[in-house]
């Protein structure tokens, strides 16, 4: 089956991201496909390249990145939710004349339509909220 996952909780403030990640791994272990992980609300902080957790804690942005790379999963961050909260790719940083961009590699900013699309195109869309 084809899955997509939506993450609305911020990493390091809520378990939602951990739960979503473990669920994603279990989905892949079962031989299913994950088309897209969509980050919305505070979930967008998963896409920050500037996340720097202590060495003995999980680095969630990196874990998503590795999972995505290995399994061909799209990591899509809602552009409106992200820009508001200070998560920018190079284009948006330029557009708003900001001093730097901070979107982690492997993630892309895109519209909320990608969440709607995931709900329609996939057999299952599973959301994890804070």
């Amino acid at each position: 089956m084809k899955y997509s996952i939506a993450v609305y909780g911020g990493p390091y403030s809520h378990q939602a991201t951990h739960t979503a990640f473990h669920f994603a791994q279990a989905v892949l272990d079962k031989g299913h496909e994950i088309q897209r992980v969509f980050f919305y609300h505070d979930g967008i902080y998963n896409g920050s390249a500037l996340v720097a957790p202590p060495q003995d804690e999980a680095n969630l942005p990196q874990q998503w990145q590795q999972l995505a790379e290995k399994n061909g999963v799209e990591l899509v961050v809602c552009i409106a939710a992200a820009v508001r909260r200070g998560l920018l790719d190079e284009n948006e940083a330029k557009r708003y004349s900001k001093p730097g961009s901070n979107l982690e590699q492997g993630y892309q900013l895109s519209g909320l339509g990608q969440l709607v699309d995931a709900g329609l195109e996939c057999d299952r869309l599973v959301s994890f909220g804070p």
Partner: protein
Amino acid sequence: MILHTVNKSVFNCNTLNECLLTTARNDGVLLLEDGVYGALETAHPTEIHEVSWYVLKEDLLARGLSEGQCREGITVVDYAGFVELTEQYKSVCSWF
């Protein structure tokens, strides 16, 4: 045939009860994260419709709870079981 997930403690929050307002007879309710406290014997969610109950094992363990403390009739599932539930039910609705 909807699988509802609930991640809030029933002792603190009305989320589980709101969820149960919307469940149909053949729906399932999976308690996860802080929602697992709703599986305790002393938890009394207002059960309007009969549903199948599940609780996520990893979240029980993380909170120092055991299967033995759970109400009768609740099925304990691990993450692989969670995925199987999402296969069986037609869609998933998350309550948080």
